[in-house]
């Protein structure tokens, strides 16, 4: 792996890969994540994008918000399309049709639905085959593009349009699928979680993921004002609360070694996080207690992993 230059406030790349003028909602955490990640990696990249908000808001023909080569084929196959792009680059380099020393990053973007549900098989296949690419799941915890339906990445207690809270339901009654751990289970060289509320952490992880040979998986917590029913200027605040409460800890797993990137001496109670969002408004004290216990348990487990496999 080449030495990676760390991004700091003074060494912030100026070049924007994702243009302004796209059609995302105000205050979208997802587009911010994508902007930071692409900025960090730089223009020598090819993007394979799953169907979803990102694809819709950036590619309405004849407009395009992409300053790099970008391809969208379907919903569940971003990892497979990226596999194809990567395989082509490899063989074209070998045959002298692309410069051998050219370091083109292949980047796949998909949402939580396109990753945790419909695209899980394609992702697993691509990670297992060991393609040299970066897969980014921008997780806004539901199918936002189709109108806020639950996914397997929707957290317990969230009200969505297909897991609505009602007299006989607290909303989503299942636990959020742990995608980063599924990626880790493939034994790939790099897995990390990120959040645009911690831009330098996210950008440096993106840069590292691109530099590492082999598959890298980034799971990015992307607050969605529309789907989470928050104000449009809340994304950063909510992202910070998610990390500080332990709801979404920022960590990385490099060649099996766990590292917690943002440490809190003491976690803030999850209620502080939950109360910022309309999707949790219906929750009662007993539900919040369940969520708190789950967060504590998961956080402790993560700390133990960092301790044992750090």
């Amino acid at each position, binding site marked *: 792996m080449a030495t990676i230059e760390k991004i700091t406030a003074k060494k912030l790349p100026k070049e924007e890969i994702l243009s302004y003028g796209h059609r995302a909602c105000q205050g979208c955490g997802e587009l911010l994540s994508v902007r930071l990640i692409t900025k960090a990696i730089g223009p020598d990249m090819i993007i394979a994008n799953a169907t979803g908000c990102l694809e819709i808001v950036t590619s309405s023909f004849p407009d395009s918000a992409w300053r790099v080569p970008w391809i969208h084929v379907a919903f569940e*196959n971003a990892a497979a399309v990226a596999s194809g792009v990567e395989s082509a680059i490899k063989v074209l380099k070998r045959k002298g049709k*692309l410069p051998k020393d050219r370091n083109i990053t292949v980047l796949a973007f998909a949402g939580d639905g396109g990753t945790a549900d419909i695209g899980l098989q394609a992702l697993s296949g691509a990670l297992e085959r060991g393609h040299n690419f970066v897969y980014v799941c921008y997780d806004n915890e539901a199918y936002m593009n189709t109108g806020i339906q639950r996914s397997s990445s929707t957290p317990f207690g969230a009200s969505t349009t297909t897991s609505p809270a009602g007299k006989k339901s607290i909303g989503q009654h299942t636990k959020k699928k742990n995608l980063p751990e599924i990626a880790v289970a493939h034994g790939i060289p790099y897995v990390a979680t990120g959040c645009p509320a911690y831009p330098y952490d996210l950008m440096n992880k993106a840069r590292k993921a691109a530099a590492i040979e082999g598959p890298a998986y980034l799971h990015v917590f992307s607050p969605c004002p529309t789907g989470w029913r928050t104000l449009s200027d809340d994304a950063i605040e909510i992202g910070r609360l998610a990390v500080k409460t332990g709801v979404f800890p920022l960590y990385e797993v490099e060649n099996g070694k766990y590292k917690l990137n943002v440490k809190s001496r003491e976690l803030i109670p999850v209620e502080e996080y939950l109360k910022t969002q309309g999707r949790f408004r219906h929750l009662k004290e007993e539900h919040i207690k369940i969520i708190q216990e789950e967060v504590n348990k998961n956080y402790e487990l993560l700390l133990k992993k960092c301790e044992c496999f750090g």
Partner: protein
Amino acid sequence: MSKRVGIEVSLGVSEAVKLCNADVVAAYPITPQTHIVEHLSELVANGELDAEFVPVESEHSAMSVCCGSSATGARTYTATSSQGLALMSEIVYIASSMRLPIVMTVADRSLSGPISIWNDHTDAMSIRDCGWIQYFVENGQEAFDAHIMAFKIAEDHRVILPVMVHLDGFILTHMIEPIEFLSQEEVNSFLPEFKPALALNPDKPVTMGPVGVPEIYTEVKKAQEVALKNSKSVILEVWKEFGDKFGRYFNPVETYKIDDAEIALLTMGSFGEPAMLAVDELRKEGEKAGLIKLRLWRPFPIEEFLEATNNLKGLAVVDRAITYGTTGGPVAIEIRNVLYEKKDSIIINDFIAGLAGRDVRINQFKQMYYETKEAVKNGKANEYKFIGVRE
């Protein structure tokens, strides 16, 4: 130098793909396509073919990988069959609309259910409207030649469309046949290097697969239809060039003893050979029998088909798939449509035959002929029927 070898047809196909110097092969195993991709992975493993073999986890991903690699400018190949084709069909449609010149072999096999590994055209007909160039081959030699021509047609800048070569599962894929190989030099002299019209390259960014809003979707689809229709002239040109160079000609509509024929059988794929034998026997019986073998399926060769049927009074269509709940099989429905102007002069009888590898014997082809002759005499087509079915 050309050499004639006895080889399993699947292996002949893989060797053709090797001679075409494919860059990326992405495939998932499914009977009866397996021998093709096994042999290709072997050729890659032995260093005889410098390609990336991507052993994907599903056919859906096979076609998705193909889209990614073709879009990046690599010559791309895959093969599938039946359920595999059904699973990848979502992306099959997208590949043609994105104008990606992928070549795919379909080892035709029936669709579930009930599950069956044997040959018919129910898989082919399920993706009839996918917008690919599609043609059928009849024997091992044609299978070999068809692939070398397929890359040239697909990648021609006047075409830029994917090509699907239909090859009957088992009946062809698993037969050992004599195939006259072309040398690498011969293939190189025929097939130029792949130069994509557009490729994903950071030096010249391009957005592929954007959203098609209502204001643009219809125009895109019209353009795709025009491209597929226009591809016919290039297909004919490439087939002729191949014939002039190597002595083996492909025609969109192949005919056998058609000139003075009054009633003809119509087949697609490997059924052409037993049907020829049936025609020979019928001729011996004094019948004015002929045979039409429809090779080019998409774009449909309307002019050539009208010409081939010009003097016919009756046509017995051998359909190897069903279109449930309507007037017969998909081929007959299409043929009736193409021959609509001639509806008063030609009787079209439809026979659904050879589903899931069920043998269709010479005398059954003759039966179809005689039933059609009877219908011509009565001046009225029969309702479609299943040949050899136990009721």
